[in-house]
């Protein structure tokens, strides 16, 4: 499917089939979650990153069905490049109304970057000025988990992590997504 067609689909679904919610509600709710996690884990930011990823994973497992129902694409993506386009132009579009750029493909087409020009989660946010959060906390890490969970449900095992964030003073917010393997529908482990 061409990228432009994916954009059209995303736009169409966003306009007609999505219930909207106030952006500040989302931003403040997510911000509260992250801030509370930081408190609960006593500023252990790597652990906060893991928790966010885990929460995102659980969201992704559920969200994918909603995505498939709304996008009405019963057809599978034919390759990982198409998957990337659909993630950006349909997935991010309908849930967050943003379309991150898909760039920096590796030669084997198994790894790409999502560059976020805007990030509704990170509006208003300033990372704590304790000398560590700036280096260790990936504020929007929940998104990595969402992608990982959602793609796992459609037989793709991926690894996703942020490599830069404007909150840390980088020029862009960039997430790296790497396909590890396509999961064959495995038989449940036999109990001998």
């Amino acid at each position, binding site marked *: 499917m061409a990228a432009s067609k994916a954009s059209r689909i995303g736009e169409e679904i966003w306009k007609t089939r999505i219930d909207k919610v106030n952006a*500040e509600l989302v*931003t*403040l709710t*997510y*911000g*509260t979650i*992250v*801030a509370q996690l*930081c408190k609960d884990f006593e500023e252990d930011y790597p652990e906060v990153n893991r928790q966010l990823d885990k929460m995102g994973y659980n969201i992704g497992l559920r969200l994918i069905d909603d995505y498939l129902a709304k996008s009405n694409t019963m057809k599978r993506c034919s390759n990982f490049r198409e998957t990337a386009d659909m993630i950006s132009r349909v997935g991010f579009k309908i849930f967050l109304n943003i379309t991150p750029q898909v760039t920096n493909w590796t030669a084997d087409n198994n790894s790409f970057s999502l560059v976020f020009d805007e990030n509704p989660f990170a*509006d*208003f*946010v*300033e*990372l*704590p*000025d304790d000398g560590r*959060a700036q280096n260790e906390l990936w504020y929007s890490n929940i998104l990595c988990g969402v992608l990982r969970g959602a793609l796992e449900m459609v037989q793709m095992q991926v690894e996703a992590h942020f490599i830069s964030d404007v909150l840390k003073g980088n020029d862009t917010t960039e997430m790296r997504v790497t396909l590890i393997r396509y999961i064959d529908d495995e038989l449940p482990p036999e109990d001998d």
Partner: protein
Amino acid sequence: MSAAIPSVACLGVIGRNKSATRLGQQLTKSHPQNNPLHISIFPSYDPTANAFTPIRNPLQFSLLLSSTIDVFDLRSKTSTASGDFGLLHAIDDRLAAYGFETNTGVRMVCIVDMRGRRVEAGGSGVAGQGGGAAGASTASSTSASAAARSSVGSVGAGLRDSEIKPVFRAMQSAYVRLLQNPFYDPDEHAPLGGKGGRRITSKKFGDDMKRIGEAWTPGVTTL
């Protein structure tokens, strides 16, 4: 030939007024906190030295801000709905304090130096500022300074409240942005037990104040 026009000498944000003291399980009394949350000081043009220096030292500015609290308290009994307190008091022939109070009781004070900046009467625009970081574009700052020049004659009469309004609107939206930051803990500023007074440490907020103070000149409508 040059003329002096007003500029911001100091921006202050004063914490909310009431904080309860907790003894045992009972709230016993509430007493004023009025802790300074933020103070930004801007240098004024000094024609004798041809340089920019603050017109008062930080302690003096802090005292000037404290002195406005009484005016706020007096006026709050007959307060206007808008929160705009207008001119609080004229300190001397150069300095004047203007005030604004949010509905949550946070007070914002803008101390204006009536001769804090110099404009060339020829119309070359605002003479360089402290950091040289005029936020406004050249076009708008020249028109603003033209407007300012036309009101130079009436400096003694003070500024119209509407000319200060953009400052408070910008300060309020900066404060709102600060509160939206999930890592900023507003409770620290009105704690039970009365031990408050922690300042705003956000760099973004400080930068916003700096930008507002440097960009404002009479006639500017948005900051």
